């Protein structure tokens, strides 16, 4: 049902009370209207139906009445006829002889009658068919008795005693003289009456009343009645029948029932008996009843002239057929009504839905308004935060367009314009910022920092990172994080820088102020000791005990001063170390470290301790430990510190040095069998100036800064340091270092392999070099060094030139064109860097390889000016000769490299690395560029991506170009993962 489901559906909003009440009211309204219309329609139908049915019943009654009246008319006519006969002289004579001829004639005239019967008062009778009925008597017949009482009547159905046939008799009394109200007869009629009376042989006495002297009955067949009854019909299947006062059928369409005088009252069919009873009771009505297994209407009409009754049986449908039109109408109206209700409900529902939708819409609108207000508030809040940030904020999209910045930023860079949005960051800001943006884009998962000069001369620290947007990837269901821009936060650190500088200055000053007196103390103590040993004590030739004891005491005392002075020195060094680390002033030289080599180094440095203390050192180093990244010297410092601590606190037994891999870390442990540390003190050992134990009684060993320094170093490497120990059971100091992530490492390895390839490639081409034809220029302001180098190189067969300063060197090079230059940096007038810069910028000399050999370790600067190798003093002769050989064999400075790759980023990365190493580079990203660049720059080496190589024809054809036969080609499979080189 629609309304139900409709109501149910609405119940989904339980919190909506007024809506429900409205709905209930409207439902009641609609329901009531429907019920009223239904009731009215049904009542109208019922009334109309009743009216029609009554009319139909009335029709049936009329029909049956008509039949009754026809029979009545007929009977009246027959009664009149018989009465006329009975009034005749012949009949009144009651003499059969007189009456018979008359009756015979009348019988012929009146064709309806079968015969006439003349009955004597005693019941004996004569008939026109047989004459005197001998032995027969009719005195028991009702019609005779009624006639004898002066009552003309029509008999019930009787069986003739004469003929044995079913018949009815029209029975009238025979009066002694004609009945009349004689007293009222006018006198002028007296004569006629007298004449008449005399003719009847009656006395003329008018006071006499006529007497019944006999009975005349006309025997008549029921055919006419049957005809009338048969003619009485109302539709198909209907029939009429007539019963006499006893219920015996006079006329019935079923001929079997009109044999004999069986009364319907005695019928086995109770319905028939019921009908018969109603007829005998002379009912005049129409009844609905069940007869012979069907519903029928039965109309009754009694006959006036006799006690008979006529009934008409009509099948119900005959009557109610008339109602079909009404029913059809009712159905149509009902259907229309139902349809109208449906439509109305539908409309109502739609109306409700529209209203609901409107309510929901308004609610949504309200929510939307609320949300947008909240959003605006949030945005305003965020905006306010950004605008009031003390730090400068700069947000760009991936193309470097500014999308957001705050007033602090504008102030920092002195930008007047308030609206920077959509401007190119490269135009507005310095290259430092655009570089940062570019870096974040290239390495989306790293945070970059840079110090940037501010407008007011201050320094800002910029922290930049890419903005990653997390998006659900539909295809794989994984989370994709794509860069949508960069965000840079710039903090004015001018004052911090100043404070920092002050701190650095303070440390320097304190260090200086402490060291200067210490220098004196320690220095003089050592001199005193030396002088005592060498001069004073030998001069004291006394054998006196007191003198000898004093000498011994002075020796001991001076030793104490020296050792304490040294302890103080190391303390100052440690304090400086930790102060520098805390101030971030340490230059960490991160490189790939082999853990076992680090440990070996530390063990070598501490071997003297073990010998002195008679302790055993055990090594447990897991084979094939992965490399870590770290500052070699600092990590060695940590291990040395731990080992020397272990030795310090262990009187006997052993110290174990262990290194294992734990997950992503390498764990190094130093295990001793010493005194151990109570659990409460485990953390304290890493605190500055804390030494575990009673400071008053226990002799302090060391500065108390060793472990804090170790902790600083390890934590800088993103590692962890801790101690496991129990009193009396020794201690285990361990620290972890993260294993270098493979990708970064690979790049490093890749690169070094590549550079190695670049350097050595030529050897394969012309290894047979006549060294005697090669000249080497040695430039050094120190003659002994020149001499040393000359001797070494001449021993290898090279020709040697010398220059004692930069100017001389430049002059000689231009004149003599040596095959190689070995160059010192620290020289008067012109430094080695300047010399190199001059030579490398002159096309005539730029091809000559230069090796810098200096105490100054500034490799970066050397490579920048274009030198080929950078070696530091003290001179490692073997390495120097190797490099000299390499470069000489190479013939000329193989510095020009052309990098070819379709991936621009990869090209840039490689170019950056090569440039940092002093190579002069050019780039190409397609065939056309490759040919153009190769011909214009004449590179010594072409580095091509293997994939590019595969599909490039230009690379292959170039190989055969004139003048390019000796170009060396390097193929790289992939910059990132593979380091396979051809």
């Amino acid at each position: 049902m629609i309304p139900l489901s409709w109501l149910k559906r609405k119940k989904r909003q339980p919190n909506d009370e007024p809506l429900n009440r409205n709905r209930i009211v409207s439902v009641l309204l609609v329901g009531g209207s429907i019920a009223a219309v239904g009731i009215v329609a049904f009542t109208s139908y019922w009334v109309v139906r009743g009216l029609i049915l009554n009319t139909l019943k009335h029709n049936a009654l009329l029909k049956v009445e008509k039949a009754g009246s026809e029979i009545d008319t007929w009977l009246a006519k027959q009664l009149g006829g018989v009465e006329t006969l009975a009034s005749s002289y012949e009949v009144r004579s009651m003499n059969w002889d007189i009456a018979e001829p008359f009756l015979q004639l009348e019988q012929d005239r009146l064709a309806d009658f079968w015969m006439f019967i003349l009955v004597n008062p005693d019941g004996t009778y004569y008939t026109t068919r047989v004459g005197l009925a001998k032995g027969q008597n009719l005195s028991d017949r009702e019609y005779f008795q009624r006639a004898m009482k002066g009552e003309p009547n029509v008999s019930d159905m009787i069986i003739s005693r004469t003929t044995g046939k079913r018949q009815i008799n029209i029975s009238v009394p025979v009066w002694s003289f004609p009945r009349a109200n004689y007293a009222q007869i006018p006198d002028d009629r007296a004569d006629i009456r007298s004449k008449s009376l005399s003719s009847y042989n009656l006395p003329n006495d008018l006071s006499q009343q006529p007497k019944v002297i006999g009975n005349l009955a006309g025997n008549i067949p029921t055919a006419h009645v049957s005809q009338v009854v048969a003619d009485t019909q109302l539709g198909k299947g209907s029939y009429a029948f007539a019963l006499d006062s006893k219920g015996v059928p006079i006329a019935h369409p079923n001929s079997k029932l009109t044999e004999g005088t069986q009364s319907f009252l005695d019928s086995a069919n109770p319905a028939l008996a019921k009908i018969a009873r109603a007829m005998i009771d002379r009912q005049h009505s129409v009844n609905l009843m069940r007869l012979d297994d069907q519903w029928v209407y039965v109309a009754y009409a009694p006959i006036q002239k006799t006690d008979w009754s006529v009934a008409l049986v009509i099948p119900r449908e005959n009557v109610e057929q008339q109602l079909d039109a009404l029913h059809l109408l009712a159905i149509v109206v009902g259907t229309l009504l139902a349809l109208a209700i449906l439509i109305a409900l539908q409309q109502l529902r739609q109306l409700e839905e529209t209203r609901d939708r409107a309510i929901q819409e308004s609610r949504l609108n309200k929510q939307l308004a609320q949300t947008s207000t909240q959003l605006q508030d949030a945005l305003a809040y965020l905006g306010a935060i950004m605008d009031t940030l003390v730090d400068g904020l700069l947000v760009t999209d991936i193309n470097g367009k500014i999308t957001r910045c705050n007033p602090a930023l504008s102030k920092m860079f002195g930008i007047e314009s308030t609206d920077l949005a959509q401007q190119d960051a490269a135009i507005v800001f310095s290259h430092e910022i655009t570089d940062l943006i570019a870096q974040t884009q290239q390495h989306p998962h790293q945070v970059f920092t840079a110090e940037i000069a501010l407008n007011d001369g201050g320094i800002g620290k910029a922290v930049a990172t890419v903005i990653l947007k997390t998006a659900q990837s539909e295809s794989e269901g994984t989370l994709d994080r794509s860069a949508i821009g960069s965000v840079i936060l710039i903090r004015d650190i001018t004052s911090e820088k100043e404070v920092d500088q002050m701190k650095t200055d303070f440390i320097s000053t304190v260090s200086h102020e402490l060291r200067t007196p210490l220098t004196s103390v320690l220095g003089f103590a050592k001199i005193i000791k030396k002088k005592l040993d060498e001069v004073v004590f030998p001069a004291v030739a006394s054998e006196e005990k007191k003198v000898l004891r004093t000498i011994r005491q002075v020796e001991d005392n001076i030793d104490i001063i020296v050792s304490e002075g040294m302890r103080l020195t190391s303390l100052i060094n440690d304090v400086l170390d930790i102060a520098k680390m805390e101030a971030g002033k340490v230059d960490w030289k991160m490189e790939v470290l082999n853990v076992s080599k680090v440990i070996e180094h530390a063990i070598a440095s501490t071997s003297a301790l073990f010998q002195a203390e008679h302790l055993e050192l055990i090594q447990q180093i897991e084979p094939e430990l992965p490399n870590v990244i770290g500052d070699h010297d600092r990590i060695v410092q940590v291990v040395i510190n731990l080992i020397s601590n272990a030795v310090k606190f262990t009187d006997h037994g052993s110290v174990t040095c262990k290194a294992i891999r734990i997950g992503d870390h390498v764990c190094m442990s130093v295990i001793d069998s010493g005194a151990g540390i109570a659990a409460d003190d485990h953390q304290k050992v890493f605190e500055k100036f804390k030494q575990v134990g009673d400071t008053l009684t226990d002799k302090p060993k060391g500065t108390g800064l060793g472990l804090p320094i170790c902790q600083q170093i390890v934590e800088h490497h993103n590692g962890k340091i801790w101690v496991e120990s129990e009193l009396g059971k020794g201690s285990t100091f361990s620290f972890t270092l993260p294993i270098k992530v493979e990708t970064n490492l690979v790049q490093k390895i890749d690169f070094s392999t590549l550079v190695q390839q670049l350097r050595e490639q030529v050897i394969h081409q012309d290894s047979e070099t006549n060294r005697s034809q090669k000249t080497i220029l040695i430039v050094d302001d120190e003659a002994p060094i020149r001499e040393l180098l000359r001797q070494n190189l001449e021993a290898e067969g090279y020709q040697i030139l010398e220059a004692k300063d930069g100017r001389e060197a430049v002059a000689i090079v231009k004149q003599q064109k040596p095959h190689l230059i070995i160059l010192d940096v620290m020289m008067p007038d012109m430094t080695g860097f300047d010399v190199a810069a001059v030579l490398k910028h002159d096309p005539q000399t730029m091809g000559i390889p230069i090796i810098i050999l200096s105490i100054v370790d500034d490799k970066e600067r050397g490579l920048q000016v274009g030198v080929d190798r950078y070696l530091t003093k003290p001179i490692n002769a073997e390495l120097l000769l190797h490099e000299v050989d390499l470069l000489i064999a190479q013939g000329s400075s193989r510095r020009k490299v052309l990098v070819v790759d379709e991936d621009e980023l990869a090209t840039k990365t490689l170019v950056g690395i090569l440039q940092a190493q002093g190579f002069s580079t050019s780039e190409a990203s397609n065939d056309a560029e490759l040919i153009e660049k190769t011909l214009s720059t004449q590179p010594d080496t072409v580095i091509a991506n293997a994939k590019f190589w595969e599909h490039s024809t230009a690379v292959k054809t170039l190989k055969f170009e004139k003048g390019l036969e000796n170009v060396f080609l390097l193929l790289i499979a992939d910059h990132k993962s593979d380091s396979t080189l051809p």
Partner: protein
Amino acid sequence: MSQKILIVDDEFHIRLLLEQTLEELEDQGVELITATNGHEALEIIKAEHPQLVFLDVMMPHLNGFDVCSTVKNELNVQDIYIIMLTAKGQELDKQKGAEVGADLYMTKPFDPDEVLEKSIQILGL
């Protein structure tokens, strides 16, 4: 010409210490000269041409780096070995020392024996 060693330090004790450390070289004809500040040192270098200079960094008025730089780059004095003596143990100073042309860098407190040994080596004694 006798060999000369110039000791430059504003601290009397340090001068004394170095003098005593190196005094045995005097037996081999080495002359020890001292200066208490940078200006004095420059004057002496110009006048005396010492072969070896022990130069303190932190001095009033003209510091050791300036002295060294002047000597190596402006005076065009050849064959002079300058050992910087400083309490500063920082990388930055070492680099600066190298930049101004210092030949060696020694951190205080230094070991007298090492000073003596180095001097003998440099002077070729």
